[in-house]
Structure formats: C-alpha cells, structure tokens
C-alpha cells in the first residue's frame, strides 16, 4: 500500500539515474586507475581490491540483515568504498589490513551513523586513517620491486631533489591506485562525462592548493615543484573521488566551491608541514565543515529581493 501511494504522486515519469547507477558509474570511472594498479603492481593489488570490496559489501549486508534494515547493499555504494580503500593501500601491506579497514569503514563510519546518506565522514578515508594510525610504519612502507620504501613525494618532502615525471604515467611506488595521474584523470573525465560530478569541488580544491603553495611554498612558479605536489600523495584521487563524495560534500552550489577551497588550502598547509597524506586529513576536515558550510550558503530563491534583473536588452531572443 505504501508503495502504491508513491505511484500516484507526480511526476509520473522519472529520469534514468538511480543510486545503483551512480555507484556503478563511479566504479567504472575508477577502472582506469584500478587496472593500471593491477598491471603495475601485479595480482597482489587485485587481491587487495577484491578483499576490500567483499569485506565492505559483506559488512553492510550483515549489518542490514541483523539490524532489520531495508537491504541497500545492492546499490554498490559499499563496493565503491571498498575499492577506494584498497586503492590507497601500499601493495606490500598485509592482506588482512583491508578486512580491518573495510569493517571499520562500513560498520562504524557508515552503518552506525544510519547507513547510506547519513554518514558525516567519508568511510573509505576513515578506514585508511585508522590503518595509518595503527600501523603507521607498514602503511608508509611503499617498497615494491626496485623502488624503496618512500615515495617520490616522500623523498621530495624530505628535501631530496626528485624527477616527478614517473608520477604522471604511474611508473613509481605508492598506493595501489594512486600512482598514475593520467589514469586517475581519465576516470575524472568519465565522472564528468557521465554527469556524476561537477567541476566545482575539484577545480576549487586544485586552484586553492596551487595558490596556497605558490604563496607560501617559497618556490614561485617552479613547474617541477607543482607537478610533484599535485601528482603525489593521492592528491588527485582525493579531490576527484574522495572530496566529491555526494554524502559528505555540500549540496549547495556555492557551498561546494567553499568546500573545495577549504580542502585545497588545508591540503597545501599540511603539505608545507611535510605531511604526505595531507589530502586525506584535508578532506576529512572538509567533511566536518559541511553542515556549517551548507548553513551559510543557502541560495537566494528565484525572485527574492531582485525583482528586476535586466538581461533583455542584451539578448532579445526574437525569432
């Protein structure tokens, strides 16, 4: 009966977008970076991804089944959380890290808050943060093949001069899905093309990040400096896939810009203090600021306070 009630209210047609579609498109957009990670780091990377995704989905399923909530795990949002979490892990991390991080992300950071749409913080980032706090040495040990334990950005922040170009293609060490800037940007283009995200948040974050580094980094227009900062430390994955997370970002248009700027400035400030995972903390702080940001950016309603807005003379749309 409840369901019929909705069927009698307007509108009687619907757009094609559903929550599950959105999540599937996000998964598709993550594919380039994920596939690159598997090719680059080998099957162990795939194993990390599978473990994280299964853990997240299973956790949500169990939670929903036992808490007698409507089954929403089929919307794939837990799969997105799992994949994002795995893409931040170093390939050498023990495989059970994914299970711990995934359970924490879903059970504590998502379901305990009330399930999809209710969480204040990005679950994948929270899972990653927990692992980083518990096992900071292993989680920062990016050694793989011929590469040492610290990333190019890590060495750079220590004061070493590095060549940042491997970070563009991805032929370096780092989080499983974070090394290839090109693959992440390809995913970003997909997100924009699918109409899943708008440019506001990532563009504002990138601009604020670069501007802050320019003002306080003391390196002027050094291209190598900016390339290293932008491509390293998961910054691109952070602004294109974490910061834009629907649930934990503002719904007001101006709020999205403000939120992006906040994340950019914070990430740059933390980087200047030598913290490699700056964007992770920046996004989480941004998440916390969302209720406040939304409160101060309620848009002006059409027709209020501005009765006359002349655009007619300029355009005059006569046929």
């Amino acid at each position, binding site marked *: 009966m409840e*369901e*019929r009630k*909705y*069927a*009698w*209210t*307007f*509108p*009687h*047609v*619907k*757009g094609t*977008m*559903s*929550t599950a*579609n*959105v999540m599937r498109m996000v998964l598709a957009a993550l594919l380039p970076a994920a596939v690159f990670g598997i090719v680059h780091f080998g099957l162990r990377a795939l194993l990390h991804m599978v473990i994280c995704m299964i853990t997240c989905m299973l956790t949500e399923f169990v939670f929903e089944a036992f808490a007698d909530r*409507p089954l*929403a795990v089929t*919307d794939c*949002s837990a799969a997105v959380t799992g994949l994002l979490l795995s893409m931040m892990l170093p390939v050498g991390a023990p495989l059970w890290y994914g299970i711990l991080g995934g359970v924490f992300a879903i059970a504590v950071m998502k379901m305990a808050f009330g*399930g*999809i*749409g*209710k969480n204040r913080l990005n679950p994948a980032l929270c899972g990653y943060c927990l692992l980083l706090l518990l096992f900071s040495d292993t989680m920062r040990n990016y050694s793989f093949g011929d590469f040492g334990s610290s990333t190019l950005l890590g060495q750079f922040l220590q004061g070493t001069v590095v060549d940042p170009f491997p970070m563009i293609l991805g032929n370096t060490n780092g989080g499983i899905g974070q090394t290839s800037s090109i693959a992440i940007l390809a995913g970003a283009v997909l997100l924009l093309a699918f109409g899943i995200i*708008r440019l506001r948040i990532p563009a504002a974050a990138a601009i604020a990040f670069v501007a802050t580094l320019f003002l306080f980094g003391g390196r002027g227009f050094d291209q190598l400096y900016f390339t290293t900062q932008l491509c390293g430390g998961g910054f691109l994955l952070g602004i294109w896939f974490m910061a834009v997370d*629907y*649930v934990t*970002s*503002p*719904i*007001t*248009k101006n709020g*999205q810009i403000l939120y992006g700027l906040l994340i950019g400035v914070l990430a740059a400030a933390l980087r200047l203090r030598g913290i490699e995972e700056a964007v992770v903390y920046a996004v989480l702080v941004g998440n916390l600021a969302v209720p406040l940001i*939304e409160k101060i950016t*309620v*848009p*002006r*309603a*059409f*027709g*209020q306070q*501005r*009765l*006359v*807005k*002349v*655009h*007619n003379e300029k*355009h*005059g*749309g*006569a*046929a």
Partner: protein
Amino acid sequence: MAHVTFKGGVFPHKRKRFTREKVLEEYFPKGDLVYPLLQHVGGMAVPVVSPGERVLEGQLIAKASGDISAPVHASVSGTVKAVEPRMTVSGKMIPSIVVENDGQYEKISAPEMRPWQEMEAGEKLRRIREAGIVGMGGAGFPTHIKLAVQNPKKIKYVIVNGTECEPYMTGDYRRMVEEPEKLVEGLEIVLSLFERAVGVLALEDNKRDAITALQLAVRKESRMEIRVFETKYPQGAERMLIYSVTGMEIDSTRLPADAGCIVLNVETVCAVRRALAEGLPLTQRALTVTGKALKNPKNLLVRLGTSFAELPDAAGGFLKEPKKFVCGGPMRGTALPDLNVPVEKTSAGLLCMSKDYVFKPSACIRCGACAEVCPIHLLPARLSELAVEEKEEEFRRMHGMECLGCGSCSYVCPARKALAPSIQGMRRKLLAQGKR
C-alpha cells in the same frame, strides 16, 4: 536565435511524436455529460437549471457566484438528469450538473453582438466572464480577473504561453499549427485591453511548424512578436516564462502584472476569441489522448463534461494493457484511479501509460541533483526532510513557500524520493493556515 532561459530545469523525453501530426478531431460524446460546478479557482458556480429541464448546447447552466468565479455552460443539448456530487479529476466529490445527451447538438441562438473592435474594455471583460473562461493551462484562474488589472497601462507584455513543456501534450501545438490566425486574433483582442503592451507568442524551439505558421500569421501585426526558447521543462511555468521573456524574476507572492505581464495559455486565448468574435461560451477544448497503451493516439476537440472513460475508445482502443492513467502531462498531471470523471476546463490531456513506475524511495545520498535542477534554486532534499519532520519555521526560512511544484527534483532524484509532492503538501498546509 538567442535562447535566454532560466537556470535549472530538466529534459524528459518529449514523446510528442505520438500525436504531433494528428489533426484536431471533433469528438461527440456518447454517455452523459457531467459538469462540476467548481472547475476554477474561486467560488463554486450556482446551478440555474433543475432536473428534468431541457438545455441547449451553449446554454448557461450554472452562474458565477461572486466576482472570483466562473459560470458553466452545457456543451450538448439534452435533459438535466441530476444535480449531485460527482467524482472529479482532483479526487474530490464536487457538486455537478449531469446532462443526458440527446444527440441533437441543438445550439442556443448566439446573442446579438457588435464586432469586438467596437466594444469598450468593460464589455469585453464582461463577455469573457460570461463565457466562463478560466486559465486552461491547468491553473483555472478566472481570465476576466487576470485581465482586469488596476492599471492596464502598466502592462508591457501579453504573453501567449505556447511552450507546452509537458511531455506528450500536443493540443496547444495543433492549435498553433492549424489555426494560427485565430490565435493571433485572440491575442489581438487581449492586446486591445492593454494599449502599451506587446504581444509575445512564446514557444519552445522544438515546435518548428508552429513557429513557421505563426510567423506567417503575425507578419502584418506590428504589436506582436514570436519568442523561441530552449525546449526545457518547466519552461511554461508562469514565473519561468516571465523571466525568459522579460528577464524579471517574481517570487510566489507576486502576480505577473507586477512584472508588467499577462500570461495566457494558447487554449485560453482561443476561447477568448470564440467568446468575443463568435459569441460562443467555453464548451470545448483541445485535449491530447495519448500514451503507449493506445492504438491510435489523437488530438481531440472534446466537449467539456465528457467522461474520460470514453476517450481511449476514441483513440482506437488499447494496444497494451494500460497500467496507469494520467489527466494532463506526465510531469505535473494527476493520476486517475478511475476514468469515470469528466473532462474539465483545465484538462489538457489523457495519458494512458503502458508502464506503471512504482517508485520505491531509498535513502537520500545528498547528490544535490535536485538543487541543481530546481528552477527556483531551492534545496529540495532539505525541504522535503523539513516537510516530513513538519519543521514549519525552518521550512519557511529555506524558502519552501517559493516552490513551484514543477516536479523536476523528483524527476532527477536517484533515490526516487517524492520530493516535490512532500514540499507541495507542506506548502499547501501552511498556505491554508494563512502562514507565508
């Protein structure tokens, strides 16, 4: 061709191809005709006939009560069977006059009339009132009240709303294609009331044939222009259209006249012309009978009072099992649980859907799509929550009272939430309490 348009809006499938090339056909009703006494905004009309009495087509059967009201006329000749409450499109039982059709279509003799060009403004308004004309786009506001503005010299635009932004609907389109000169004459009549106004025929850019036909019809009219806008829902909403035409934003508390505008639907303008050029009251309207469930969707000229139940047969019967009937377009139309309701002055179409979308809502994922498309720049997701929680103060502070009820937010919502209906419900409740 510049396209000035409002921010936001959605692009549902237009689905006009079912009926856009179908010529308007007159439909002769088979069963009884039912005339609800309230088909407009304002006071309920008062019956002036009693059961057993014979009436003629065009005869007054219920007179207006008070100023904001509209009379009702018989659309066939026959015998009054009853005056009793009947189910209407709105889902409410409304006192109605039931007339048994005798199939003669005997018309009442038209009153002696001077040509409209010789009439005073007051006489024109009186005749519009006596013809029972109300806004036929769906609002049902009595047209003579709309036209009786305090200072007619302040009206700069008389806008004929030919945007027909609802998917499937093609009645206005056919009117414009088939009888552009009649529409232009109707606009001329309205313009004669507002000496400083320009007549604007507003269309969406998907109506090429109508644009061509109207261009030909207005070529000698110095006071009229055609404006073409982006095909986008809700382009035809009054406040959106005023913005597209004049660049002025009005809020929900203001009237179009505050922005120097009068906005009339195509069908309404046609009715004004019939009333003043031919002396005919409002007894029929163009109505699109369409949908995937029908064999032969059509545009019909339907006599008011005809039962919706007759219309599917007039359109060739069913091709597939109909799952849902909607009076009007799919965006803002009213679902009809039962087709045994009469066609009213405001009924633009009958949509027979072969698929019933049962929208089971899930949790809001705060994607912001609703805020992105809201033409009023509201935050529908938030307002809907506030409406459910009945937080009146905050609902008003977040401009909830400004909602148009266009349904764009519900249309895009990936969680399938009934955003617009809940916001509208809250808005109506507050309006009923006199809170703004």
